[in-house]
């Protein structure tokens, strides 16, 4: 079966000029992914990993520097028009910037329905339904400039779904939403995927959201895909990751403390150590948290460090990066 989205060494290098010195930033670096039709595909990564650039290239908004991709079987460079009519794109980070603020929500949606060639009667039905679903029926005639950020985000979500495209690019769709709408939106996306067989490419920096929804997850870092696996494999990877977090009073020699902690036999690695104004947090990967906690506490105590709390912690993206780095070097 043909893939819904397939990339071939897709690469984007941004040029920037700083103090008259040209700098090149590889935002996306030879990415090869293949998303099957009807798949719910998660793209996970910290901010600046290149997720948005990758998505924008697939939506034909940005032209690649090298390589290409096929969306719904069409080449993104040679057949952008065909790609454009079978995708729905949403970008949450803009916070509602990409709407016409001087038009109402209804008019905004009507406008995009025209652009996407949706027949008038169908468009009307869908706009009514979407506005009702996103709880905007009452304000539908109000100009978007008077909306809150959450409302604008909801209009943008409705816009992405309006033409019923087979492939949806959802770039951080829950970022500006309150908890209830975020839950509803996730349910809708899941249903669109399972009931209507839509291919969904979903990006987020929240691991749990992605794990909950997606059938397959790719993790991106510095423009590269470093993991591409189903959530079960990811969970498996993290199964033997045990992490604890220690809060201590703020200190000047954090790196000395980190150094002596990493020498402890119960500590596998120090994931991160952050100093904030009143306390510092150290995150450790350990073999067994029950053994590690007393050892870490007594070590810190002997160093004269004031501990305010110690706890087990759920694995995070950082843990995966540390683990992968270790495996890579081993």
């Amino acid at each position, binding site marked *: 079966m043909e893939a819904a989205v397939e990339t071939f060494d897709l690469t984007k290098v941004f040029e920037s000029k700083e103090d008259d010195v040209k700098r090149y930033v590889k935002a996306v670096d030879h990415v090869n992914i293949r998303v099957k039709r009807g798949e719910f595909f998660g793209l996970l990564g910290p901010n600046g990993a290149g997720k948005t650039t990758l998505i924008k290239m697939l939506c034909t908004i940005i032209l690649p520097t090298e390589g290409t991709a096929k969306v719904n079987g069409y080449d993104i460079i040679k057949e952008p028009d065909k790609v454009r009519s079978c995708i729905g794109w949403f970008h949450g980070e803009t916070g509602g910037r990409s709407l016409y603020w001087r038009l109402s929500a209804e008019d905004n949606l009507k406008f995009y329905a025209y652009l996407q060639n949706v027949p008038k009667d169908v468009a009307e039905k869908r706009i009514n339904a979407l506005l009702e*679903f996103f709880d905007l029926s009452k304000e539908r005639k109000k100009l978007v400039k008077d909306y809150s950020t959450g409302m604008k985000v909801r209009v943008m979500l409705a816009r992405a*779904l309006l033409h019923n495209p087979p492939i949806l690019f959802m770039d951080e769709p829950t970022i500006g939403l309150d908890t209830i709408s975020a839950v509803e939106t996730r349910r809708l996306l899941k249903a669109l995927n399972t009931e209507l067989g839509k291919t969904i490419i979903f990006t987020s920096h929240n691991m749990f959201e992605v794990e909950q929804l997606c059938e397959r997850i790719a993790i991106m870092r510095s423009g590269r895909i470093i993991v591409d696996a189903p959530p079960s494999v990811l969970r498996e990877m993290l199964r033997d990751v045990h992490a604890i977090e220690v809060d201590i009073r703020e200190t000047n020699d954090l790196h000395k403390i980190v150094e002596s902690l990493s020498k402890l036999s119960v500590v596998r690695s120090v994931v991160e150590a952050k100093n904030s104004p009143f306390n510092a947090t150290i995150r450790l990967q350990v073999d067994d948290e029950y053994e590690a906690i007393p050892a870490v506490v007594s070590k810190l105590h002997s160093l004269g460090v004031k501990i305010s709390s110690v706890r087990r912690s759920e694995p995070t993206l950082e843990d995966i990066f540390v683990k992968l780095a270790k495996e890579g070097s081993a």
Partner: protein
Amino acid sequence: MRVEDLIDLFREDCQRIPSEVRHVWAIFWANFKIFLSYRTWVILETISTVASVAMYSFMGLQVDSRRIALAGYGEVDWLSFALVGVATANYLWMCISRLSHALQHEVHEGTLEPIIASPISMRSYIIGQSIRGFLVSGYFMLGALIVGVCVLKAPLVISLETVLSFVAVILLMVLSYSGIGIMAAGLILVYKKGDPLTFLFASVTEFLGGVLFPLKYFEAFPGLYLVAMLMPYTHALDAARRILLNGATILSPAVLQDVAILLAYSAVFIPIGLRVFRWGVDRIRYEGTVATY
């Protein structure tokens, strides 16, 4: 509305037939609606149009009417002479800067990204914006002419033939400049700086086209005179004056000559403009700056 209902609604798909006419209509309709939402601006601009026409009528009181005859339209009064000039110059300026302004706005608001990500051709976009430009600037031009003719009694020749000929000349004038307007829009997309090009263009055009005085006075400066004769606007204005001041029509030989020049300019500049525009759009897609300003 529950998730299930929404899914049911989307279960039945519809055929989507691409239609350029609907695309053009969508761009026009949305932008016209946005224009109407700037009510204060519309009112103020209307007032300033009326004020400027009034101003010209007082300025005209100081003009030596014998010297106006040098322009070659006979013994006309200066108000009508200037009215035609000012109205057409403003129309041209508003029309050709329309696309650049609109695009700057779209980049600023981030609305260009969703437009690029949808299957509308840039041609439909340009046409839609231009229709909006024609109508809005047409409103102001009509306002100026009506105040001039009805309130200040400028003796323009108004008949069915002259009005139709005038409209045709105006359209040709805009057409002959649209290549430059489209080119400027493409350059602005890339360089993100205001639109110095069209601004400079407008003021030079207004000055050299002989809006307020007969071009005869340029003959002392052959360089300026040559530039003036090379500008399509000079010919459009000449045609418009022949029609509205002397009652010529588009079929009169002198007017036909102007029309031919305007057509030639359109044929040369529009393809160049479109090419530059396409280059601009691809350039910002390559640089990834579709929504950066």
